[in-house]
């Protein structure tokens, strides 16, 4: 009999080296927030839960502040710049009017977020009017064009990094749908044209420009006035483009926050439906446990990092083993040797595809068929045209018939059977809650499922009678969480969530080692 003590407590100590949980992306993201600081951003307000009116400017600031805090824990390799336009003061390398690049000490303008940046950005509103000031930068009789300048500054900030390994974006937050509305005639046409050309130049350099418009219910943000041309939105994209129209600050903030995150796929895989019918889908990690905060060992005298050297020592002789050792398994009192090649050959049972095996009713998907977080799949026509159409057709059929697909996912390191569960889109007042697509649920194999239910079999097991069940039902009704939503709790055990406690300390430490300085 075999007892696996590791197994017992594995619950709390998931292997952090597991590739599956390491959220690494192929690319690094460089993002410039372009925040409109015009008087209109300050004067337009929306009501919040605590009866106070909140300006659009504050909506924008608080969303960005929140996403910076998430980013510093989850994706700290990504870089950001914060850039206001329609400002009274100017601060930018090009010395252009109406653009103010906000930054803190020990940090380049476009750089990873730091504790200090977050802290100072959090209270930027306090002295904003005094230090930076709000002033609309496009006016009749002046050649100044604050939007043009802002795009120029942002593009210059994004000059670093090769487009192959970085993902460059500008996020434009504004509530003005007609920035050149107060101009007339040739000046207006001319200024609009040059601004659009500036945007196109940036896009040609591989920079994506995204608009996050804020609006009020009575006055919808009309994207066709100017921005659809600036962004180059075509017919279909235009219909897909939805402005945030919301009365409540909380909803608006929620919508903005979601849009700030750029979705990143894990990989593109082909989904073989039957012989000769293969479509392409992208996979996304929508749900993954947040890394509980990795630890780096430091020398307590100098705060410098320690280098960990690993060496292989022969257990019999104590000699240092230099070459890559073969692996072995003791079997029948002998050591059976395996090469790396043989191990990967054993694991290679398929090409990396997802292969359809058939369909089952959803009732066959038991609650205990689960091993790790699911992966989301969404079709792509980029490489194989027709993928989306076939995917949508299957998706609809599966939803209607309440069936899920069983497929074999031939991943080279961990091939296994998966369930593909179709999910219909769910939308609430704060935007999309569940995207349409399929969720890939990793199924266990026979050896992974244990028969615990029948561990204690007895001839006369007591069973609740109707009255007892009724009493229990009353209890169930009494403690009903009506508005429960998954993920409404932050993890109190995550060291990342605790670190802000030490932010003052972080700012106070003199000889703080910057991990990234070392690798640069």
């Amino acid at each position, binding site marked *: 009999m075999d007892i696996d003590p590791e197994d017992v*407590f594995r619950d709390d100590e998931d292997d952090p080296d597991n590739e599956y949980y390491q959220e690494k992306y192929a690319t690094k993201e460089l993002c410039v927030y372009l925040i409109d600081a015009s008087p209109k951003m300050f004067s337009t307000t929306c009501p919040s839960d605590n009866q106070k009116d909140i300006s659009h400017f504050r909506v924008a600031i608080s969303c960005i502040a929140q996403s910076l805090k998430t980013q510093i824990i989850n994706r700290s390799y990504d870089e950001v710049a914060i850039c206001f336009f329609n400002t009274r003061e100017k601060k930018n390398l090009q010395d252009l009017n109406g653009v103010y690049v906000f930054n803190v000490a020990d940090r380049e303008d476009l750089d990873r977020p730091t504790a200090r940046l977050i802290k100072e950005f959090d209270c930027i509103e306090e002295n904003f009017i005094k230090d930076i000031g709000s002033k609309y930068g496009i006016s009749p009789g002046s050649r100044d064009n604050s939007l043009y300048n802002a795009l120029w500054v942002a593009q210059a900030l994004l000059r670093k990094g090769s487009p192959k390994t970085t993902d460059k974006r500008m996020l434009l937050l504004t509530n003005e749908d007609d920035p050149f509305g107060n101009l007339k005639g040739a000046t207006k046409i001319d200024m609009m044209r040059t601004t659009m050309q500036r945007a196109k130049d940036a896009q040609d350099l591989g920079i994506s420009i995204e608009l996050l418009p804020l609006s009020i219910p009575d006055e919808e943000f009309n994207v066709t006035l100017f921005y659809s041309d600036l962004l180059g939105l075509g017919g279909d994209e235009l219909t897909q483009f939805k402005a945030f129209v919301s009365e409540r600050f909380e909803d608006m903030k929620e919508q903005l926050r979601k849009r700030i995150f750029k979705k990143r796929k894990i990989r593109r895989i082909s989904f073989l439906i039957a012989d000769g019918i293969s479509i392409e889908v992208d996979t996304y990690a929508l749900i993954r446990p947040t890394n509980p905060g990795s630890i780096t060992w430091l020398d307590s005298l100098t705060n410098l990092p320690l280098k960990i050297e690993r060496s292989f020592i022969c257990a019999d002789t104590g000699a240092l083993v230099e070459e890559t050792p073969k692996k072995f398994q003791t079997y029948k009192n002998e050591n059976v040797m395996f090469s790396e090649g043989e191990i990967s050959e054993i694991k290679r049972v398929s090409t990396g595809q997802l292969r359809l095996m058939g369909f089952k009713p959803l009732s066959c998907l038991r609650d205990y068929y689960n091993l790790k977080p699911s992966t989301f799949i969404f079709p792509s026509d980029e490489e194989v045209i027709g993928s989306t159409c076939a995917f949508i057709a299957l998706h609809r059929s599966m939803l209607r018939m309440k069936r899920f697909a069983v497929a074999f996912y031939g991943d080279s390191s961990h091939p296994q059977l998966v369930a593909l569960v179709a999910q219909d889109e769910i939308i609430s007042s704060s935007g999309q809650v569940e995207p349409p697509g399929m969720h890939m649920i990793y199924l266990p194999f026979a050896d992974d499922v244990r028969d615990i239910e029948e561990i204690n079999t007895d001839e006369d097991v007591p069973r609740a009678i109707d009255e007892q069940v009724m009493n*229990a039902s009353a209890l169930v009704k009494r403690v009903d969480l009506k508005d429960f939503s998954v993920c409404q709790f932050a993890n109190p055990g995550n060291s990342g969530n605790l670190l802000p406690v030490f932010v003052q300390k972080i700012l106070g430490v003199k000889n703080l080692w910057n991990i990234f300085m070392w690798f640069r």
Partner: protein
Amino acid sequence: MSLITKVENLRDIEREGLVLVLDVSPPMHAIVPEMQKICSMLAIKKLIFGKYDEVGLVVFGTAETRNELTKEVGGYQNVTVMRDIKVVDGDLVEVLQPLPQGSASGDFLDAIIVAMDMLIKKYGPTNKGKKRLCLITNAASPVKDPFEGTKEDQVNTIASQMKASGMKMNCVIVRTKQDLDVNKRIMEENDLLLSTFSSKSSCKTVYVESATSLLGALRTRNITPVTIYRGDFELSSKLKIKVWVYKKTCEEKFPTLKKYSNKAPLTDKFATHEIKVDHEYKNIKDQNRTVPPDQRIKGYRYGPQVVPISSAEWEAVKFKPEKGVKLLGFTDTANIMRHYYMKDVNIFIAEPGNKKAILAVSALARAMKETNKVAIIRCVWRQGQQNVVVGVLTPYISEKDNVADSFYFNVLPFAEDVREFQFPSFSNFPSSMQPNTQQQEAADKLVSALDLAPPNKEEGLRPEFTPNLVLERFYRFLELKSRHPDAAVPPLDETLSRIREIDPELLSQNKSIIDEFRGCFEIKENPKLKKSSRRIIREKPSGSNEDVDVKDPDPIECMSSSEKIGDQNPVKDFEAMMLRRDSPAWVDKAIQGMKNKILYLVEKPCEGDRYEKTLECLVALRKACIIEQEVKQFNDFLIHLYKLCQEKGLLSFCEYIAAQHISLISKKESADSDVTEDESMNFYVKTET
């Protein structure tokens, strides 16, 4: 869990005494190879994980009779003891390969009694709970009438005897299609007898209908379940239920192999050959200085900075929850999406023997089932644990009288674990991407036709009965290598292939529906996409560099024009290379290049006109190989290609080239060939059978 309970559990661990009881009567012959495989797997895993376990082997349905009971009391015909109960060893694997194929009828009850007799003689009253019988049969042969009483009485007697001496039994009943047609009455009677075992003793019976699920029907490794929590499930400060929590699912991982050191002298018989890993913490500036543990401090990453925080500081703010399981509330089942489940699954059972707790769990589970609710709970499994888990309890209502109701527990994500990516609505896609009525109908038909869980039939690929094909392959290879150290990794066998490829029977039954689906949807590669930017390697791990995406990995593509087989006109490039006479190496290079090109074309993800292109390449290669007297190269390649297509489900391509009469090069075409004309003609026919 406290150390004391752990020690107690360890003390429990004794050798297991197991008797395999296998039906080898004629109706079982078709399934004998799979029976052999699952028993070998059990033996192999015992050799690694249960070296002290003892195993015996009884087969029944044999022409001969060899057991002690027949000598002592007579009867018990056609039951053969192939191995007495003894410590597991390599002989067990050998004795299973091959199993004899019997010619008599198989009376499983006789065989069970013989096996019980072996266990009783070997262990007497000791080894309670560690004595087990594993019966594999189709239970389709009649059971003989006893001398006195009914068969039912006899089973009752045996069952109570089993229970009294602490024996367990696993029955795997294999019912393939042909069994269903015959002996209906006998099977029903036998099933009734088997169900008596299940209700009267520690017996678990499962029915399987396919060879693949037979391989998953027996647990080949015993893992003693250990609780991860014992204590109160607190519904309110006054209402508490005593529960035990176990793992319900837990992935059996690929074994961690040890690193081998060959430093020890060959003469050293006691050498472990193991390698230890040693970690040294060194000063980054002065590499020769090792920093002692008391001078090390943990640094936590916050953005780009690493913040040194001493354990005392950390201790002051650290989250230190109290051990316990608390109810947060109930919510509608529909509120908790299936895809939010984060981890492997736990099971909550009422404290064994505690009638009040069993009743309470039962009442709550049934109430939740009736009202369609789930419970949201907060768990801290043990004292000192630094995190808390929020999860969902779903009810499990037992269908068996002797099994109590319980709950399954799944971990839910915390706020920061969810990425709220936004995706376009399907309805916002242009009409060209929307399925039309005809396409939707074709999809509807496909989804209902490719049914893995048809009524009155075994559910195909049910996780509980699906073996892990990689682990199966590893352990089989381990056994093979222990006998033949130079053996190569064998291909997956037919039975295991059913796990990675759709069942050919299901395919052929629904051929017209699949063809209709294929005909309805136009799926083709995007012509606008530049060849160079199309990714070929799909196995890209998520952490790797983006460059892999963009770069065409085909090295032949990268050569200059006269030296490579390009994409535009591969046949022309190939012929140009073959004509080059500046070095004899060009012929080999061209042939190799063409082979790669063909393999690449075949494996491309989408059908389109690539079959035609591939065929042209294949024809050119065939012609050139005849001229250059490289016949063997072509023939070997064609065989390889054919196998590859079969492995990858590209049968339509095979059919296509077969229809174009592209076969092996025969003797008639080239004297260098050792393939006869007939063999060439029948190449596709033969390999198909």
